[in-house]
């Protein structure tokens, strides 16, 4: 709800006077962030940086290598000085825009040096080098844009580089053969731990970086749920079962035990330091559902239903969280997704319109029954009391 509507409601409910409402409205207008300017600045510097990369890629032969390198270093230094000055002058928006440009120019410089000296690419190491060189910039950034771009680049390039080291290659191989989506579940768990650690120690100092991490954690969980739900039965089933049956049983038990322990410890940590339970629940659901994939038969309907149950469990958890935390938009989104998934499962499992229709009517009746039970036994009070504790 917009602030104007809220003020109108509060005024009509006699919570605040008309004069107070006017003052609040004026204060909000005066302190509104120049969102459009910030986003356009970020986009402008990102585009200019990409333009430089493109020009460098064209490999303009007329200019000798040393001139190109000299010009590149001059631009880098000029940008660094401009970033430094804008920070000193507290021009926050220009500082962030130039910081993004500087980061893109560092990538362009790596490309230019590699091009001039004909250096050979090894996997994604150029991107890993970029993420190491720009790490200090990500730390000093006060907006979410740079950390948001940096995080997936660093994660992907470091995994790519680590997977070329025999020890990590073996480790990834063992995890991969344990149960379907094991690597993704492990990756999300590691990211969740880093996120919790960062939020615990650097909550205020690295707020935009933690926000970016939260975004990617959410994105990864949603992507994995969608992939497990729709991918397991349609695309990957044969590959899963063949791969997993070839795995080492003792190692599999060890990996599964470690993951369960890590999940339990994560839950304990979150509970002890009073962090939201949503992440703990989502991780537990992901791990539980993916482990049980091991014992499911290679049957399309069963896999479809299992995927449906996974998505519903996650969505119901999100809805419960939204209800407890009074987040209306999130609750609406979760409910809409639940409705869409219910409709889709009937098409997936039954196929004909008659059975789909009957199934939907039964589902509707189940929801009505749930509302009745909710009201009759006052379950909402129970949830609120629990949360209060």
């Amino acid at each position, binding site marked *: 709800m917009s602030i104007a509507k809220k003020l109108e409601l509060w005024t009509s409910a006699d919570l605040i006077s008309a004069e107070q409402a006017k003052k609040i409205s004026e204060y909000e207008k005066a302190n509104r962030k120049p969102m459009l300017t910030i986003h356009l600045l970020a986009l402008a510097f990102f585009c200019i940086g990409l333009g430089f*990369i493109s020009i*460098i*890629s*064209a*490999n*303009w*032969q007329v200019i000798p290598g040393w001139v190109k*390198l000299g010009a590149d*270093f001059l631009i*880098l*230094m000029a940008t*660094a000085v401009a*970033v*430094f000055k804008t*920070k*000193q002058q507290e021009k926050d928006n220009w500082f962030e825009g130039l910081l993004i440009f*500087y980061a893109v120019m*560092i*990538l*362009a*410089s*790596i*490309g*230019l*040096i*590699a*091009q001039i*000296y*004909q*250096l*050979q*690419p090894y996997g994604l190491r*150029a991107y890993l080098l970029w993420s190491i*060189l*720009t790490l*200090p*910039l990500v*730390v*000093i950034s006060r907006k979410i844009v740079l950390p948001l771009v940096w995080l997936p680049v660093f994660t992907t390039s470091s995994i790519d580089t680590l997977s070329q080291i025999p020890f990590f290659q073996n480790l990834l191989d063992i995890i991969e053969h344990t149960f379907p989506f094991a690597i993704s579940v492990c990756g999300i768990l590691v990211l969740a731990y880093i996120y919790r650690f960062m939020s615990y120690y650097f909550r205020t100092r690295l707020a935009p970086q933690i926000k970016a991490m939260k975004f990617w954690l959410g994105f990864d969980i949603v992507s994995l749920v969608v992939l497990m739900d729709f991918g397991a039965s349609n695309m990957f089933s044969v590959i899963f079962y063949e791969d997993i049956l070839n795995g080492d049983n003792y190692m599999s038990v060890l990996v599964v035990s470690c993951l369960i322990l890590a999940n339990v410890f994560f839950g304990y940590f979150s509970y002890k330091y009073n962090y939201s339970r949503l992440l703990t629940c989502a991780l537990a659901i992901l791990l539980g559902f993916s482990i049980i994939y091991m014992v499911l038969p290679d049957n399309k309907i069963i896999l479809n239903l299992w995927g449906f149950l996974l998505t519903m469990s996650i969505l119901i958890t999100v809805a419960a969280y939204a209800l407890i935390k009074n987040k209306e938009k999130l609750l609406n989104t979760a409910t809409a997704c639940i409705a869409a998934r219910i409709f889709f499962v009937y098409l997936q499992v039954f196929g004909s319109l008659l059975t789909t229709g009957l199934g939907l009517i039964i589902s509707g009746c189940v929801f009505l029954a749930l509302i009745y039970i909710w009201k009759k036994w006052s379950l909402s009070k129970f949830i609120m009391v629990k949360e209060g504790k």
Partner: protein
Amino acid sequence: MSKKVWLFLSLAFPIIFLAAWTFITEQNIQNAKEIIIRAEGYDPRNLISGHYLNLRLNWQETDCTQFSDNLCHPNRFESIYQYYIPETDAPKLNQLAGNNKTKIELVFAYPENKNPYLKDMLINGKNWKELLKEDK
């Protein structure tokens, strides 16, 4: 350490690293012995470095007497190299590389204890830039 110093170090670190990297690479190439190895080519392009030719080394047709012990050392080289080329010359070079009659050779700087650096490309015994100039 003050915030100002941290900011300065954060901004200077990438420039210092890139400058050092450039200097060391230049020194390694300048001080290394040159050797020529036969290669066969095919194409596409790199996101941050532009167009390049994919070249596979052909050790059977390489003169191994260039090495100090008169023996070829394929283990010290990659099996496939990317040679970055200008966008404007890419179609012509692709066409040449795809022709069976074209003799492609790669010139390497061959330092004693480091990975070899790809320096230049020869087409039918001539530097590719000179060859394209003559064609124009």
